[in-house]
């Protein structure tokens, strides 16, 4: 008994000792400026915690070629992450480099003058041909650029090649062909398309609307059009028809999309190109087990093919401890060297057309995306103001779970949109 208590006492005492020597303030590793011993380290924060190995791979490259490396801190929870970054601006722990979102999230930070501008970096990168001019507007607020693109992804249709071969199907080039493919699958008891009621519930709304009326899609995100407009209602009705006729897998199935495609639970997944990395991780081989195609427009009369893209920015806080090095790193990130390393580490496309993407189909898409026949549209998730998005995700989640009259849902979203745009003046 005496022994037990002395153990407790010893533990309590050891607290102070261990606490005193371990951890502490991290004033030792900050720098990158004039530190002779090894490469300088930049504090790097991201909500894509699962990408740590890939970020560190690129960091290895930068340590040799740039003399700067990433001190990685990953979050697995996007919401906690956003709150952490927001609050960190009040403190002395401002992040040197961090991933963020375009759209209203970015505007929030710029409105409070919290970011270091990157206008010069952008100009150089565009002059070098490292980044397409078209991307710039998403990083521009009041004629200044902020952040650099961390990644880019296009939303395409992945499919299970074995299933396509089994039923003698080929990649469709028109919406009608796509529907024929889907009907064949349906007739054979295979759910054609993946659907989920969590987070990515907006994907088919985005595809159907962008492929039917891209102008309306854009107008919706700027508040110029209403969710109750006939065009939007029509798209919802089309979606509802597809849901009711069994074109989709079970939206309540929380099995990861890559597993659903692998198992043949669904034959096709409408997803961002980052799914390639996830498919590779479940041992599916690009071109052999899976492939993808650009989703044809619903409306065949449109002059350009609507292609949804997303880009996540990498930003530097104004007055961060290593602001200069961080901006240097951001500049390097856009280069061919960095983007080749990044795209191949991730198994994804790159915004830099010069990057050597090993995956052939991805490389092809990389080129195709800059051609005239394609109209790039920002992903719904970034294009929509946060409160409107939240209401929309809730509404779409309920809609795909229990399809019904879309009007009440659209009215709810529009009410949120009205409130938002009224506040914006």
């Amino acid at each position, binding site marked *: 008994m005496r022994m037990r208590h002395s153990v407790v006492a010893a*533990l309590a005492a050891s607290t102070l000792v261990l606490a005193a020597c371990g951890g502490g303030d991290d004033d030792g590793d900050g720098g990158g400026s004039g530190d002779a011993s090894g490469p300088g380290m930049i504090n790097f924060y991201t909500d894509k915690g*699962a990408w740590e*190995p890939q970020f560190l791979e690129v960091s290895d490259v930068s340590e040799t070629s740039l003399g700067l490396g990433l001190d990685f801190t990953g979050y697995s929870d996007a919401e906690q992450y956003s709150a952490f970054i927001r609050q960190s601006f009040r*403190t002395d722990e401002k992040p040197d480099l961090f991933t963020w979102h375009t759209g209203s999230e970015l505007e929030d930070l710029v409105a409070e003058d919290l970011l270091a501008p990157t206008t010069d970096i952008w100009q150089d990168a565009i002059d070098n041909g490292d980044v397409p001019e078209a991307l710039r507007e998403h990083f521009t607020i009041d004629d200044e650029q902020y952040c650099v693109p961390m990644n880019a992804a296009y939303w395409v249709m992945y499919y299970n090649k074995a299933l396509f071969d089994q039923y003698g199907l080929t990649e469709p080039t028109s919406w009608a062909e796509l529907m024929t493919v889907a009907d064949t699958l349906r007739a054979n008891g295979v759910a054609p398309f993946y659907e989920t009621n969590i987070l990515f519930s907006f994907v088919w709304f985005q595809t159907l609307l962008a492929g039917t009326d891209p102008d309306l899609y854009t107008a919706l995100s700027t508040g110029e059009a209403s969710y109750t407009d006939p065009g939007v209602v029509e798209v919802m009705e089309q979606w509802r028809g597809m849901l009711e006729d069994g074109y989709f897998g079970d939206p309540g199935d929380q099995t990861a999309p890559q597993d659903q495609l692998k198992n043949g639970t669904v034959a096709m997944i409408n997803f961002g190109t980052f799914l390639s990395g996830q498919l590779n991780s479940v041992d599916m081989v690009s071109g052999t087990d899976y492939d993808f195609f650009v989703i044809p427009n619903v409306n065949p009369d449109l002059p350009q093919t609507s292609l949804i893209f997303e880009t996540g920015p990498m930003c530097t806080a104004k007055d961060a401890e290593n602001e200069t090095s961080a901006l240097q790193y951001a500049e390097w990130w856009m280069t061919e060297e960095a983007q080749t390393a990044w795209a191949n580490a991730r198994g994804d496309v790159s915004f830099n057309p010069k990057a050597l993407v090993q995956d052939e189909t991805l490389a092809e898409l990389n080129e195709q995306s800059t051609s005239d026949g394609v109209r790039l549209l920002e992903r719904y998730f970034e294009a929509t103001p946060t409160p409107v998005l939240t209401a929309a995700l809730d509404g779409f989640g309920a809609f795909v779970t229990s399809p019904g009259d879309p009007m009440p849902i659209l009215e709810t979203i529009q009410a949120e949109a009205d409130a938002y745009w009224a506040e914006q003046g």
Partner: protein
Amino acid sequence: MIARILRPAVLIVLGLIWLAPIYLLLVNASKDPAQYAADQVWRPIGDFALFDNMREAWEIGGLGDAVSSTLLYSIVGPALAVLIGAAIGFAIVALRLKHGFFWFVLVFGGTVFPLQMILMPLFVGYVEAGVYDSRLGMIAIYTAITVPFAALVMRNFLGGIAHQVFEAAVVDGASTWRIFWRIYLPMSTSALVAVFILQATFVWNDLLLGLALSQSTEVRPLMTAVAALQDTYGGLQLTAVLAGGLLVSLPTVVLFLSTQRIFSRGLSLGQF
């Protein structure tokens, strides 16, 4: 006679139901990722790959880095909390602290605040106080967060000890500290241990505080690395995620197993 068979029978049947999800966890964590199929979760198909999966999670997730710091937090935080909780329980019950109920409610009231909402002010406060991303800071918050629970349990448990015990010790000339340390604490071993293991498990599994209050590898607790094994943006295969989750649960499972003896003592109630 019937009761002698019925009691274990009911427990065993219930126990098997309770173990069904654990079975799913084990079976699927042991599957070869290439052979894993979502529509066959119940069946143990394919090669036994539990250890490969664990190794993958351990290495890619970098779980090893965080084990020592997390161990420190889960032992020291709850140990301090149990003592602090027992101390106020002792003050209220044995020393008849004035307005005891008020002070007790004040301390217990610490649990009513939703943890998510104090993260941000804590983060800012920690940075300003210079304890952000330090082990001292982590221990402090883990202690604080477990004190209300410890206080409630210990206050009620110590309340079961007759006041005559205290009086007798006073007559013997013992100091209050000595009575607390030598009489009351030893008499509440099982409650102390129960609170300790429950709270140690809580701290070991904490993700939120770890995310908000730490940044460097030496300070960040284990679950921040575990949670990053898989998220919306991909990550490891499900089999490896499960194996990783299982692996990091081993210490707490062992803790529960090794303390069972303490809870097996007691009066037989064979008559039920």
